[in-house]
């Protein structure tokens, strides 16, 4: 894409593009990118690795820095990294590219999304022997994430991180409300009564007690609900998503708690994702509940804040909803090329060894040599919630579940109504159950 495009080339490309668009029934945008613009750069040669990911913002710049380390170490390989839109659009394009026979060599995939990709045979398993030959053994990874990436004993993905739902807190406001201990950390919260007390104290000092966004972002309400519901010991789906086992008393307990937060104005949820970040970054909110990936933004805003694991609100179980970015190898139309696999594993290993860069964006590295390193332990506030990686709760396995999936969209849309006090817990439970039943009874496409 670096070649300059003059008028003639533009006309040629546009003409060719129009023909392909027509030929592909308007579905060929990415084929145009890789098939028409890049051949002069040598896409088909063995010296180009195509790597797809969905990382933007802070994550995107960290990943680019990590890629550059690889590029400097392997100047003979051209690493072609393509960034696509997060969530469903990314996974749709990835599945179609694999099925159409023009997949990338390596792709980032959420661990929770493997359930839609492994059963239909879209991914190539890793060989543990080959991994070991490239310096990666099972003992080098967070065990939970590594084992979750196994299907029928085959290693389908290599985890890069664990990224849980956490609690951010504004140290200035929390100190004002008398909530910090001598080391400047929020005193441990246990149980819903203690959390309510903390929020009310924050309210009494004039702060917005807690911020958690929901507008056009159904994933975040789902993360909040699933964290609390898992702490209460509830399960959502069984039999790979064919059966809904949503537990009415437990779900209602959680929904009533969220509803109480809305009623007492202890939670400001009338925000979209950017609005949530802006509200906490402005320094007027005490707590902010979201995945840990916004740490960069708040550091850049010079906000007095810190982070910790999401507190145990129900029971003593401090489970937190989480997911992992993983590396997967899409099935190649011509079968596996050993030389190419070597190049891919070298790339993965190089990126994993850069995990400290990745960790600075908030994610807990899955690569234990970094996770256990002194450098990471010193990385604050990122390493405060490091142990959550071992008790992370992943979305229940189903073809329609996982990050940005229909499960999150259907359930999250319902929960958001409770967060702004627009629907009652009982109504929300019924619609959530109905939505899940609708998904569970659809015939599985995988």
């Amino acid at each position: 894409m670096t070649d300059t495009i003059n008028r003639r080339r533009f006309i040629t490309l546009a003409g060719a593009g129009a023909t392909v668009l027509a030929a592909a029934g308007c579905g060929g945008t990415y084929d145009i990118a890789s098939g028409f613009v890049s051949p002069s750069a040598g896409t088909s040669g063995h010296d180009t690795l195509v790597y797809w990911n969905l990382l933007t913002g802070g994550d995107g710049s960290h990943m680019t820095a990590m890629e550059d380390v690889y590029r400097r170490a392997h100047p003979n390989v051209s690493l072609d990294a393509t960034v696509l839109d997060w969530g469903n659009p990314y996974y749709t394009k990835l599945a179609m590219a694999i099925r159409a026979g023009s997949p990338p060599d390596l792709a980032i995939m959420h661990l929770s999304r493997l359930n839609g990709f492994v059963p239909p045979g879209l991914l190539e398993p890793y060989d543990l022997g080959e991994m070991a030959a490239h310096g990666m053994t099972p003992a080098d990874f967070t065990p939970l994430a590594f084992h979750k990436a196994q299907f029928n004993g085959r290693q389908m993905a290599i985890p890069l991180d664990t990224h849980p739902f956490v609690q951010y807190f504004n140290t200035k406001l929390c100190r004002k409300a008398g909530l910090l201990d001598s080391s400047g950390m929020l005193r441990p919260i246990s149980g819903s009564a203690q959390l309510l007390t903390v929020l009310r104290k924050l309210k009494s000092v004039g702060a917005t007690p807690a911020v958690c966004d929901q507008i056009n972002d159904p994933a975040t309400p789902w993360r909040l609900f699933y964290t609390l519901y898992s702490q209460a010991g509830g399960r959502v789906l069984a039999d790979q998503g064919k059966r809904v086992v949503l537990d009415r008393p437990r779900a209602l307990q959680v929904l009533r708690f969220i509803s109480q937060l809305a009623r007492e104005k202890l939670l400001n949820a009338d925000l979209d994702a950017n609005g949530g970040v802006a509200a906490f970054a402005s320094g007027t909110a005490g707590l902010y509940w979201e995945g840990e990936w916004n740490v960069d933004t708040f550091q850049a805003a010079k906000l007095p804040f810190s982070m910790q694991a999401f507190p145990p609100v129900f029971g003593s179980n401090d489970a937190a909803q989480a997911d992992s970015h993983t590396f997967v190898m899409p099935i190649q139309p011509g079968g596996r090329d050993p030389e190419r696999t070597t190049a891919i594993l070298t790339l993965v290993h190089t990126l994993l060894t850069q995990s400290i860069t990745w960790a600075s964006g908030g994610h807990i590295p899955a690569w234990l040599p970094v996770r256990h390193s002194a450098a990471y332990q010193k990385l604050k506030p990122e390493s405060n919630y490091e142990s959550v990686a071992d008790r992370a709760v992943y979305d229940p396995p189903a073809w329609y579940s996982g990050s940005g999936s229909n499960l999150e969209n259907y359930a999250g849309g319902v929960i958001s109504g409770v967060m702004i006090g627009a629907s009652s817990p009982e109504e929300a439970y019924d619609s959530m159950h109905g939505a899940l039943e609708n998904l569970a009874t659809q015939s599985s496409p995988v």
Partner: protein
Amino acid sequence: MSTATLPSTAVRIRRPRPGRPRAGRSVGLGFVAPFLIFYALFLLLPLVLAIVMSLFNTSLVLPGLGHWVGLHNYGELFGDSYFWSSMWHTVLFTLVSTPVLVIVPLCFAIAVYRRRHGQWFYRLAFFMPYILPSAVVALLWTWMYEPGYGIIDGVFGFLGLGAPGWLSSTSLALYSIVIVTVWWTIGFNFILFLAGLQEIPQELYEAAAMDGASGWTQIRRITMPMLGRTITLVTVLQVIASMKIFDQVYLITSGGPDFSTRVALEYIYDTGFTSGRVGYASAASLVLFVVIVVIGFLWLALVRRQEQGV
């Protein structure tokens, strides 16, 4: 822009005389062949494939057609409340947007047509948004609707009104999409009306003016009846365009919040491409197709009746 191309019965295509040499016919066929090939490949073939796939549980991520399921997809579709609510959103969008997109550009066209100077400016101004790609329109309006720092919120705040949740309220979001669509596509209908107005012979107005008819009477008694056919055309084109609503919704809300803006095509996209249930999505798109075809035939019937009446 001075001549309008409107359906007319005045032009009749002469039938070929019997005994015309066959060579001429094959040359004609050669001329239409490129179109026919494209038409067959990209319209008829996909349609047939969609009909076939709607009878199978075809998956996006599995090779082949999948298993034969007969009419099961249709059965599931008719009982699927998510499909019907998305169909309702399409219908509601059409019912709200069509009158606005017919009446407003008609008024604009008449107002502009009656101006002697600077017509080109108004034509350009009204038509300009129409040439923008949907992605640009979506970005512009997402920023303008943005809670907190969007310009619309700013204006509402300045006027001392509380800003409603343009894209976050389940009862308002669809109307916000209507506003975007009106702004974006009003120019097309405006140009059609302007062309229709230019077709009306000037003498009629001169005669009416000599008889002392006021401007309003001229509009009511000359312009409106003479524009009848254009109004029908614009209305039906608009109904069909509104039934096909997708881009703005996909780009601005993806069907949210809580599916309150999920229109039929968004539902078809979600089930076909996101959930990978291509067979089921084909059944859904055929139902939408039938609905649009029925509306098309109603149009034909309407136009025929109008033409017989004129």
